[in-house]
């Protein structure tokens, strides 16, 4: 695994999810097999064929001071909360501003701000628009706010690749450190897209589960009766650091951030490429980039969103490139799908699994679909072995973006 380049390690974790307002509460809920998916009670729900979702367990406006939350889009609120937790968790590193970077993206950006602001515009005129409307709606707003708060001047970036956004951000952050642009980078993804327009639009694609009578059972990756994904919200952020910088300050190191593999399907704007070629390329490239072999990978936090098309293709690609030995799970069965936030929270879960040597089970998997020959964790969490092991988080997005990030035990 040694290569003649800067090694990147993970020193801080932060999330706010449908299962909890921080890493500890979310992780214990995942291990307990709890669901963050519930019936939505908003008055617009009657207009839609989908009547449930995975709201954040902790309302961000109860965490942030009011003057702050009123100038932030909900996605930015989640991102700041998760970034602050990750930064504290990393021990609030002392780092020169020009050696500190941020890479935090969102799949959609400030969509609830856009829609609410347009209502204000139509009803009351431009004079009544908040002067913060633009910084609230822009998808790089979260990165900007985090950069301001931490004083990060090495570079502040926001990748946008739909549901691959969070993982792509973490990959980009690794590359910032490896290339010598920064010593510490705060990276991840955020999303706040539970709005009737989004649910209606995803429903128009026939992409969402409509299991309205059993919301907690609706997200069921690899199950024969899965019928679509469940929309969730929240953010997941990691603090990445050069190993040298982390060691010099005596930081607690969760894992090595070993590498990233990207590919583009170049096939269809929203459907997976049917042979899984892009997924296999991303898997091969993450192994190559990390200097790992399939045998080193003991766990995969899969993208598996509970849609009919994608789940089996991914399992087949994992089987072919990595093997049948890793413990595979889809935490989306409990959190729902956080879109741009997914790769952020699921990277945090992958790192926690490695560090605590335990993999949460995929819930609702009653009847395994045909063609799934990987070892999916079902029923109860399962332990990972001791010694040197590695794990991968997969994230794939509309547009044909495939991203796999690898982490290794230290």
């Amino acid at each position: 695994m040694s290569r003649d380049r800067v090694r990147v390690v993970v020193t801080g974790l932060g999330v706010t999810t449908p299962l909890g307002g921080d890493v500890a509460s979310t992780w214990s809920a995942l291990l307990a097999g709890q669901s963050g998916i519930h019936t939505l009670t908003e008055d617009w729900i009657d207009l839609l064929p989908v009547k449930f979702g995975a709201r954040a367990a902790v309302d961000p406006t109860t965490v942030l001071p009011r003057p702050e939350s009123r100038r932030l889009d909900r996605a930015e609120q989640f991102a700041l909360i998760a970034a602050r937790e990750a930064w504290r968790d990393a021990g609030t590193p002392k780092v020169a501003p020009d050696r500190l970077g941020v890479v935090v993206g969102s799949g959609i950006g400030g969509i609830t701000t856009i829609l609410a602001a347009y209502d204000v515009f139509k009803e009351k005129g431009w004079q009544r628009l908040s002067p913060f409307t633009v910084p609230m709606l822009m998808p790089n707003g979260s990165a900007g706010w985090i950069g301001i708060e931490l004083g990060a001047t090495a570079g502040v970036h926001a990748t946008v690749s739909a549901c691959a956004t969070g993982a792509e951000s973490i990959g980009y952050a690794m590359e910032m450190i490896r290339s010598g642009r920064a010593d510490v980078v705060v990276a991840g993804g955020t999303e706040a897209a539970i709005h009737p327009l989004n649910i209606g639009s995803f429903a128009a694609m026939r992409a969402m589960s409509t299991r309205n009578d059993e919301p907690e059972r609706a997200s069921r990756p690899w199950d024969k009766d899965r019928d679509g994904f469940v929309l969730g919200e929240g953010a997941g952020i990691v603090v990445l650091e050069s190993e040298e910088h982390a060691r010099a300050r005596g930081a607690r190191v969760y894992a090595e951030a070993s590498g990233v593999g990207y590919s583009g399907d170049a096939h269809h704007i929203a459907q997976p490429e049917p042979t899984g070629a892009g997924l296999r390329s991303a898997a091969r490239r993450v192994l190559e980039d990390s200097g790992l072999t399939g045998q080193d990978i003991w766990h995969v936090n899969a993208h598996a969103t509970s849609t009919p098309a994608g789940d089996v293709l991914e399992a087949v690609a994992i089987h072919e490139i990595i093997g049948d030995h890793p413990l595979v799970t889809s935490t989306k069965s409990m959190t729902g799908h956080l879109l741009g936030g997914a790769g952020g929270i699921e990277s945090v879960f992958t790192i926690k699994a490695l560090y605590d040597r335990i993999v949460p089970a995929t819930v609702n998997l009653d009847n395994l679909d045909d063609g799934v020959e990987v070892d999916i964790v079902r029923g109860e969490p399962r332990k990972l072995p001791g010694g040197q092991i590695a794990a991968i988080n997969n994230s794939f997005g509309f547009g044909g973006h495939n991203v796999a990030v690898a982490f290794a035990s230290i």
Partner: protein
Amino acid sequence: MAVTEQEILAGLGKIINEITGIPAPEVTPEKNFVDDLDIDSLSMVEIAVAAQDEFGVEIPDDQLKHLKTVKDVVNFIQN
């Protein structure tokens, strides 16, 4: 009946607290919005709109940029 300076000051303190989190008692007449209260131009727009609602006095953009201190705003509203 015209509002008193004290009433305007109290109203502004409330508005500025709501928008920026600055405690209302710190909003005193001599304070400069930028130098003393660290209020940026975007927040000043919000404050101006809220003050218009509160006191029924329109503050045009070309006037707003001349209102540097809390006292300036109080005087503008009174006159």
